[in-house]
């Protein structure tokens, strides 16, 4: 790997994500670990959106759909497992589960299917219409979850015990954190590889100029659709982890505010930059904690920060710190 300023910054952020929770264990501040876990899970959700938004230029204001679907996949499976009521008895018996290794793929598959359907319909449009349609889908899921009383409706679902992972005690905060961080790192690796692949090149070209892509014989819509599905699956996985962190799922996971927040992480950090979503989510969670403790109007400060970044740095904070992205190597 070439030692660019961006790589150094990414390394520093990664080191921070490893060292801060270790420090928190040593000084016995478990709440810091919870905050860090929250930041890492939000990062993962935003890494998912960044593939659609940053690489593919798809401004989705409905990514909470996937976050929520991941959360409810986990919540519903756990609910059936803890109440010993099977999910289905016919045609085959399907019971709930508390195994992360079962929950995660399911959360990703369900989110991916939803992303495929939403993408298929939304990608017929562009610009503001795309934003509005994805937002509309988000609201549909939000209101559906409110009215679905079998799974808590407005009150949401509580899960008594965190899901299990082989050889790991997930109830120990640092161990659960390690799982989340490992997944985030894996997602970032996949994102980095994808960006440099043939698919990434075509996706990025489709963002910049669809005519160009068409005239080399490639279909920009199907390329974007596949990116949207990958994006939704990653955000869905983040949703499953988020539900496990809080041991609670509720319709707010589907809310458009959450879609907006995920997008804000990316804008703060840097649209299309590999670590942009990570930096953005860390800053959001940090501000939420410290400023939120001072004033309930802390979002005003966040708004101010967002405004400054949008006005003065097109590459977000990553762009501000390390300059423009190197397009070639």
């Amino acid at each position, binding site marked *: 790997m070439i030692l660019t300023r961006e790589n150094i910054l990414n390394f520093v952020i990664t080191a921070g994500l490893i060292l801060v929770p270790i420090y928190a264990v040593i000084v016995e501040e478990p709440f810091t670990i919870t905050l860090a876990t929250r930041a890492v899970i939000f990062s993962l959700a935003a890494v998912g959106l960044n593939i659609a938004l940053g690489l593919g230029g798809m401004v989705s204001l409905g990514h909470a759909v996937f976050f929520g679907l991941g959360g409810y996949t986990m919540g519903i499976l756990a609910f059936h497992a803890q109440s010993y009521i099977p999910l289905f008895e016919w045609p085959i018996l399907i019971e709930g589960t508390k195994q992360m290794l079962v929950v995660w793929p399911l959360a990703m598959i369900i989110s991916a299917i939803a992303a495929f359907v939403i993408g298929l319909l939304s990608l017929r449009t562009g610009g503001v219409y795309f934003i509005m349609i994805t937002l509309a889908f988000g609201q549909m899921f939000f209101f559906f979850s409110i009215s679905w009383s079998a799974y808590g409706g407005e009150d949401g679902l509580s899960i008594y015990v965190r899901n299990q992972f082989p050889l790991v005690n997930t109830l120990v905060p640092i161990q659960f954190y390690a799982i989340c961080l490992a997944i985030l790192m894996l997602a970032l690796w996949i994102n980095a*590889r*994808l960006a*440099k*692949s*043939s*698919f*990434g*090149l*075509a996706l*990025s*070209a489709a963002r*910049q*100029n669809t*005519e*160009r*892509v*068409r*005239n*080399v*014989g*490639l*279909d920009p819509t199907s*390329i974007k659709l*596949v990116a949207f599905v990958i994006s939704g699956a990653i955000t869905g996985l983040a949703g499953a982890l988020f539900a496990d962190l809080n041991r609670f799922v509720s319709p707010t996971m589907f809310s458009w505010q959450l879609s907006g927040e995920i997008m804000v992480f990316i804008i703060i950090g840097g649209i299309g930059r590999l670590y942009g979503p990570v930096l953005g989510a860390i800053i959001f969670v940090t501000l939420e904690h410290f400023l939120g403790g001072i004033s309930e109007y802390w979002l005003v400060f966040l708004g101010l920060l967002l405004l400054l970044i949008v006005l003065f740095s097109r590459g977000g904070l990553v762009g501000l710190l390390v300059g423009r992205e190197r*397009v*070639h*190597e």
Partner: protein
Amino acid sequence: MNKTILKTYNLTKNFGALRASDKISIDLRVGEIHGLIGPNGAGKTTLIAQIMGGLKPDSGLIEFDGTDITSFTTESRAQAGLGRTFQISQLAMDQTVLQNVVLGTVGERGGVWNFWRPVLAIQELRERAMESLSDVGLADKAATPVSELSHGGRRQLEVAIALTLNPKAFVMDEPMAGLGSDGSKKMTIFLDNLRTRAPILLVEHDMEAVFALSDRISVLVSGMVIATGSVDQIRNDARVRKAYLGEGS
């Protein structure tokens, strides 16, 4: 006579009351450059858009390499072997020159669904892309971001991308536009040699270039082809002189 590769039959397109294409029948033969000229608003761009699939004709047919492609999408036409350059450059501005050309090789060779392998590390694609860049004289600019490339460089890049597709025919919309006399001359020499690789349907405002390059010329006025013929025939055609060339003299 050489084989016909691209042919339109009675292509008609209306925009409301305006007939932009009026029963246009033209053909492009292997080995030739077919110049398409006409005053502003004659319907050249509309015709190109129909041939490339951006616009759907109201009636008429487009045949390419023996296949009726009238209902093909733009991407299927490109796959079938129609290489195009645009009047206004259509490029991925944030990418490098090389990345833009490699995209062309991905389109031609397939492999767009490869999510893992770094595309610039695929030797076969890279070599093919560099070959095209050398052909148009842009090899030394491979690492330059397109946004920093000169206007002339972008025109050359468009041609390089079209070359990677190994097209059976080129459709070029004003490749000389904005090139300046030096650039124009270079492009003329380049296109002159290109016709042996694939025939070119050339829309161009630069009359000197069109008359120097074309084997045949069609003249489009008000959506109608008023004459098709050799350079001499067109020069001496009374209708053409009256309707078009006469304007300037």
